């Protein structure tokens, strides 16, 4: 990535793009749980050191969705489940109606350009009555159109528009799938890892100021 400005204070160059370390799908369900306790070990594991998550809720979900949910894990005490993309809405709805996860905190995505399923799509949920927070995660390839969660949570509207704006993930069935923070005529999706800020800057100064480079 052209615009990755590595800090001078960094003791060693970070190899490749930051995507390298996590670009290995799929993650093993549970690595050694102890590795989370030593954060400054010289060689950090390349995958998240999760522990399995088991509770009455996971049992309920397992019996209801079976293979559609591929993983129940916990990292640093925060629970999340990995769902197949086509089942996300059903899981969200089930969690809302049957388990009281009635507050959709956030929807966001993470880009792993080297992975076949390029994006992590993450739904953060909270339940007022249980005072519990979980994350629903799914992995989708570029171009996949996940179903909009607006039918389950009204608040998904702007959050999905922002994900579209920043990552170019279009949601099926969204009432008005258009950009929200950037102007409608904007080219590209900035939070994709292959979107270079410097290239955008260079293009702009070339078109508008007639100079080669701006910085």
């Amino acid at each position: 990535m052209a615009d990755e400005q590595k800090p001078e204070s960094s003791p060693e160059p970070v190899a490749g793009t930051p995507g390298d370390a996590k670009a290995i799908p799929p993650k093993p369900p549970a690595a050694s749980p102890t590795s989370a306790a030593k954060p400054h070990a010289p060689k950090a594991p390349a995958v998240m050191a999760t522990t399995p998550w088991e509770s009455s809720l996971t049992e309920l979900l397992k019996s209801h969705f079976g293979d559609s949910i591929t993983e129940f894990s916990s990292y640093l005490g925060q629970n999340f489940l990995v769902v197949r993309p086509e089942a996300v809405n059903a899981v969200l709805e089930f969690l809302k109606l049957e388990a009281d996860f009635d507050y959709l905190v956030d929807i966001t995505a993470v880009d792993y350009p080297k992975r076949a399923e390029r994006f992590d799509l993450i739904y953060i949920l909270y339940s007022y009555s249980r005072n519990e927070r979980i994350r629903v995660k799914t992995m989708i390839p570029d171009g996949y159109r996940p179903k909009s969660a607006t039918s389950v949570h009204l608040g998904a509207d702007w959050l999905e528009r922002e994900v579209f704006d920043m990552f170019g993930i279009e949601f099926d069935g969204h009432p008005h799938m258009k950009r929200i923070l950037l102007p409608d005529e904007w080219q590209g999706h900035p939070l994709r890892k292959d979107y270079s800020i410097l290239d955008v800057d260079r293009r702009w100064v070339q078109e508008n100021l007639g100079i080669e480079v701006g910085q």
Partner: protein
Amino acid sequence: MAGSTFLDSSELVLNMGPQHPSTHGVLRVILKLDGEKVIGTECVIGYLHRGVEKIGENRTYVQFAPYVDRMDYVAAVSNGLGYCLAVEKLLSVEAPPRAQVTRVILTELNRIASHLLWLGTHALDIGAITPLFYTLREREEVLKIFEKYCGARLTTHAFRIGGLQYELYDGFEEDVAKFCDMFLPKVDEYEELLTDNRIWVERLKGVGILTAEQCKAYGVTGPVLRAAGVAWDLRKAQPYSGYEQYDFDIPIRQNGDTFDRYIVRMEEMRQSVRIIRQALERIEPGPIMAKVPKVIKPPVGEVYVSIEAPKGELGYFIVSDGSTQPYRVRVRPPSFVNLQALDQMCRGALVADVVAIIGTIDIVLGEVDR
């Protein structure tokens, strides 16, 4: 239209902002009107978009810390606290007690400052000019404490990952205690000006109602949710920085209208003073920094950590790939999510109410647009 006269009403689309004093920044609202009644709105945002999340991916954990202050710039301390807590969670470190107490004091002072600016501008929007002068006068005292503590007034960058950069200055406790003593009667003074003021009440009561169910459906948090009768505050629900040790109440009201949100925020300022007073008694000598490596390289993983900012739930979702830079920083901004409910609140209201409703959500566009 056949047989129509100039008196026949039809729908009118009116553009409000982005350059409009009561939009509190650069917010553009497109209103669809029937006469003076609002039948629908659409927000156009993004004028202040600076790509904070993209910047985060291109900076180290330490370098990114000052940037978060620039989102909700009237509550910069809260932004910083949330970010530090999230990175500390990734690193599995905890700030030492002295740092935590200091954080609580500064964050609560900042909550007061944020609410004061909200009160002053909200009242100004509605036509009451005087409160602004009073609230800015008291806010100044808070900013002076910030300035004496860390040299900055607004974008303070007061905290560091693992604790604090600066030791408390001599006389900090006295300054804060003096502020608390001075401030409590001032809240009564504002209330005297406004709470029973007939114009104020008429303009706020029953305006922009958002019920508890609607709040939950839209994900609205903070004082807006509490004014609808939900006693939910992250400081109580999932305490951080030792908030569980403090004795304070969550003010709630039942109607969920603009007036109730006003009352809730007034009461919150009093509760903040209560917390600060308790925190002052808890300051004990000790280290202000936890053991944090010089180069911060959290292990591979992802966390979501959120705090109760003055506007609602402020969350950070950070993905680490084990390098010195975050792989992804997602900010869950309370203003952005709360603003989404504007349409619901404005439907059926009058044009003049839109101004009151924008004020009552208490948005900061720096945070909406990031």
